[in-house]
């Protein structure tokens, strides 16, 4: 029996937070790559050292709210699904809104430390289908008529 990644007190906090903040269902598609040779059960895989932890973390989160729906896909086995969302790296989190619509929100890698709260905030925004951006920022964004891709590189802190 492995130790949970989310501690008991954080679990209670998140349960309440999700209950208060989630409006619609939010869907998380997690793409991983399972190493055939790895033993599973939390064993790090040489191919994707953080994939099993990402699966465990996501499953633990799923248990904290009925509104959080999780699908785990294997990049090798679910090629069509990966192609649909343009995923070619693992682990990748794709976050969909309550209508199942993809807004291009991605999280690459295990959201550890402070980055976990970034993922949580993304889930809450997506569930409510609204961001906490200032009105002038929203106005600027609405005026954009060309495809823009923003990548934010972080490290766990």
């Amino acid at each position, binding site marked *: 029996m492995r130790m949970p990644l989310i501690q008991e007190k954080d679990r209670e906090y998140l349960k309440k937070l999700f209950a208060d903040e989630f409006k619609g269902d939010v869907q998380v598609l997690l793409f991983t790559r399972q190493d055939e040779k790895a033993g599973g059960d939390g064993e790090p895989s040489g191919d994707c050292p953080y994939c099993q932890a990402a699966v465990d973390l996501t499953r633990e989160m799923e248990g904290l709210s009925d509104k959080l729906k999780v699908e785990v896909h294997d990049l090798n086995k679910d090629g069509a699904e990966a192609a649909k969302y343009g995923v070619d790296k693992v682990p990748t989190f794709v976050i969909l809104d309550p209508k199942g619509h993809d807004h291009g929100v991605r999280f690459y*890698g295990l959201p550890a430390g402070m980055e976990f709260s970034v993922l949580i905030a993304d889930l809450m925004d997506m569930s409510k289908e609204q961001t906490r951006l200032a009105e002038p920022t*929203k106005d600027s964004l609405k005026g954009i008529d060309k495809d823009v891709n923003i990548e934010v590189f972080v490290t766990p802190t």
Partner: protein
Amino acid sequence: MESEKVKSSVVEASEFPEWSQENDVYAVPKVVIRQGDKKVEFEGAYPEKMFIQQVMKALEG
């Protein structure tokens, strides 16, 4: 989410060393904004107003 044209990703740099190297990530947070062939990049956590200015810069010309 506010624009169908804008896609955004958070990348754990330490797990994707090649991707980070391609984008000259030496300090975090590092932000790379792409529009076609145009690329605007900066290091540090910018306030929202300055962040959107950088996004709009990528759209100029």
